[in-house]
């Protein structure tokens, strides 16, 4: 890592960037045009995002809040919890004094925003002994927190035991390197049996005891209820967006997926997130009413990203799909499985419901939500077991009328790279042309975006999808 980078506190940098960017909501067209000229480095990203309109501004506000909280945490006597994207953060907000920092979200921002991406932070992890082949999604900002360029971490709480080794391992390494308390929720390889639910609930209660002990706090029951009630509204709004995605053409702009899940990972339960979803529903409803696709042009084909998206510089993949008139039907990161989601149809009995009747039902709800977060739900057991990767992918592909499936991930993903060839074979057998991207979603050094795009082009053309 270049020594100079330690001089720039990462969270402060993000906080200031988003605080300035959110003001764009009050700017005129002309002012924006001038701004884009004077920030050539981020204009490739800012341009498309601003073109979304109001939801983008709200998203920038959400991120400004998130990083603002983070940089003020210590001043306000709060503790910073290092956590992962697939950990529902509601519990932290229910404690008054915990502020989450989600590594993968930071990695996405650095990868999209900076040409050198998060390479320096990734390399720093290797320099201090972390395995170079570990998943890049954590390494991209973990290096900042290990090197002192990020805020000081107080504790680490994650939930990928039994689901993803490389994720759990990264957080466990960070906790050890920084000498901070660690708690990892652990998951059996099945989802639905009662004994598994019982395990989820017990483990989650042990997590709460850990947070209480090491965070020196007690959570506010009323606040928790309020957050969960807000989440209900958020799920309903998200469901509405999901339902509209079933239309042909799909009226939802692909980039919405990124904004929704990033906001959910960081701001679940916040009123502002609800506002963003409402604004999105309006945009998408308008598109739907007018029979417009979310891409602003004719829809030629619909692609389900059955793993994750790609976060190369300037959101290359989102842009590529839109330019080629391919509707982005969401990725594994997009779906959370509430029991009223339109995609529950083929997977009923495997979803969560929000029950705010008592403290116990609320804790059980949180455990159930966490057990169904992206990846936590889908890649914990054999891919062809009930409710796992194959069944979920097939049911999503069917409900959203996908024409093809695309795997995009990271070479660090030992889990999916150990069975993606098998699931690809099965998806093909079920009639879905399936493409495997060998790039790294967060690290452009593995395969340049241009090379990835070239192969995508090849796939879509050869398989007659375009």
């Amino acid at each position, binding site marked *: 890592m270049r020594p100079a980078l330690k001089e720039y506190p990462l969270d402060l940098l993000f906080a200031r960037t988003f605080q300035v960017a959110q003001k764009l909501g009050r700017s005129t067209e002309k002012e924006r045009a001038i701004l884009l000229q004077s920030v050539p480095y981020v204009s490739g990203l800012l341009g498309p995002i601003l073109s979304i309109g109001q939801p983008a501004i709200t998203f920038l506000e959400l991120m400004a809040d998130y990083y603002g909280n983070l940089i003020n945490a210590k001043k306000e006597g709060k503790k910073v919890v290092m956590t992962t994207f697939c950990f529902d953060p509601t519990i932290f907000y229910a404690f008054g004094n915990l502020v989450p920092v989600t590594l993968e979200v930071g990695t996405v921002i650095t990868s999209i925003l900076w040409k050198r991406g998060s390479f320096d932070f990734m390399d720093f992890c290797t320099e201090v002994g972390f*395995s170079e082949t570990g*998943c890049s999604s954590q390494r991209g900002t973990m290096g900042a927190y290990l090197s002192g360029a990020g805020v000081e971490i107080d504790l680490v709480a994650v939930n990928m035991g*039994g689901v993803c080794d490389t994720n759990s391992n990264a957080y466990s390494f960070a906790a050890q390197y920084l000498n901070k308390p660690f708690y990892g929720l652990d998951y059996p390889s099945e989802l639905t049996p009662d004994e598994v639910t019982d395990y989820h609930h017990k483990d989650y209660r042990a997590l709460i005891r850990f947070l209480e002990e090491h965070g020196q706090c007690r959570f506010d029951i009323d606040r928790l209820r309020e957050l969960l009630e807000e989440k209900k509204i958020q799920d309903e709004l998200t469901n509405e967006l999901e339902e509209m995605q079933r239309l042909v053409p799909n009226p939802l702009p692909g980039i919405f997926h990124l904004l929704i899940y990033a906001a959910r990972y960081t701001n679940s339960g916040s009123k502002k997130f609800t506002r963003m979803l409402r604004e999105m529903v309006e945009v998408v409803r308008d598109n739907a009413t007018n029979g417009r696709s979310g891409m602003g042009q004719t829809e030629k084909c619909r692609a389900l990203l059955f793993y994750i998206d790609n976060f190369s510089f300037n959101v290359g993949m989102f842009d590529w799909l839109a330019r080629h008139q391919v509707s982005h039907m969401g990725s594994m990161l997009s779906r959370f499985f509430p029991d009223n989601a339109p995609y529950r149809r083929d997977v009923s009995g495997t979803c969560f419901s929000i029950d705010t009747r008592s403290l116990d039902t609320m804790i059980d709800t949180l455990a159930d939500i966490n057990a169904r977060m992206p990846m936590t739900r889908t890649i914990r057991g054999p891919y062809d077991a009930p409710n796992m990767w194959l069944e979920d992918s097939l049911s999503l592909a069917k409900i959203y009328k996908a024409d093809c499936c695309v795997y995009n991930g990271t070479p660090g993903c030992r889990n999916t790279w150990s069975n993606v*060839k098998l699931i690809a074979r099965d998806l093909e057998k079920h009639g879905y042309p399936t493409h495997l991207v060998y790039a790294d979603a967060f690290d452009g050094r593995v395969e340049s975006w241009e090379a990835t795009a070239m192969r995508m082009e090849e796939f879509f053309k050869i398989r007659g999808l375009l």
Partner: protein
Amino acid sequence: MSSILSQAARSIDLDPVRKFKEKGGTVIGYTCSFVPVEIFHAAGMLPIRLRGINTESLNIGDAYYGPFVCTFPKALLQQAGQGSFKFLDGAVISAGCDAMRRLDECWRKMSEDVPGALPPSWFYYLDVPHKPQGVALEWYQSRIRKLIQALEEKFGVHITDESLHLAISKQNKVRTALGELAELRCLEPAVVSGTEAFEALIARNVLPTDIYLEELDRLIEEVKSRAEPVSGYRKRLFITGSICDDLELVEQIEAAGAVVVGETVCYGLRNTSPLVSDTGDPVAALSAFYLSGSVCPRMFGYYPTRLVAISGRIKRTQAQGVIMQNIRFCDLHGSENGLLERDLEKLDVPTLRIEKEYGALTEKGRLRMRIDAFLEQLEKSRPPVQEAEG
């Protein structure tokens, strides 16, 4: 040196296993140190830990696994596809690490293309939690009970507490003997080579217990009576890291002029506690031993406990340096080695981190260079440069 132990450590196709089968015995393969072998012994079966030694090509392994995956499970899949595990009646795939747990699907799917590649009677997936205590321990215990039940139903056997107790006490005898061998390896000057000891450790995973115990006892007695120490070694080294049943690695280290005095790798000694409790509920005792006593980095958040156990063993063996190896793409050991490197060096124990492929797939020349250099590093006290005479 015992030829039975040596042969057992160097081949997959073993005479004693063949004889066991000829007598109608049931052989069950397993893949990870979180599978309590006592259960199979209690049922009169022979558990064999599967190995990927002597794998030369990975054409089958690479066809099902992706490119960014450790070569160990690929080598197992390769051997399975080549028919090397035909002696198995059943197999248990346990959730050791992500790449290993996916051997379940890869093996099943491969056998759709290679008929007969799957063990004929039984193929079982064992869930193992990633925490050693609390609700995770209860869960593991319930999984072990389920495993026993599945075994009973499939093979029509009855596994009683009594038979489990007997199996535990027999395996404890093995553990006691291996503990004695480990103690002998701590002596300076060294009386037993790492190669001999590692052969004995590996053979444990593949031989019927009675044959093994007899050979092991014989080896220990023979070592005790040795008049001469191991000749010509310069330094005492210890090995940690990824799964390793690679005798060539130990031989290579010893050929470079070291003696390997201990290891914490799978196939070697992998547990912090010496014996399984042989009183009370045998399943509870086995669960506590296998789950809570492991030094595997798959137990997230328990590095401090492992550091104490590993550094304690290093100290006891009087090792002068530690070779920390990991198979490429083994992030668990790769990064644990990073932490160990930091912490062992704080304790003044020099370390060498190496990343390699599994077993025979490793490029030997470069590995040897690093081992040589490490030994040269440990022998810092080279004579200072003197001016040549005028």
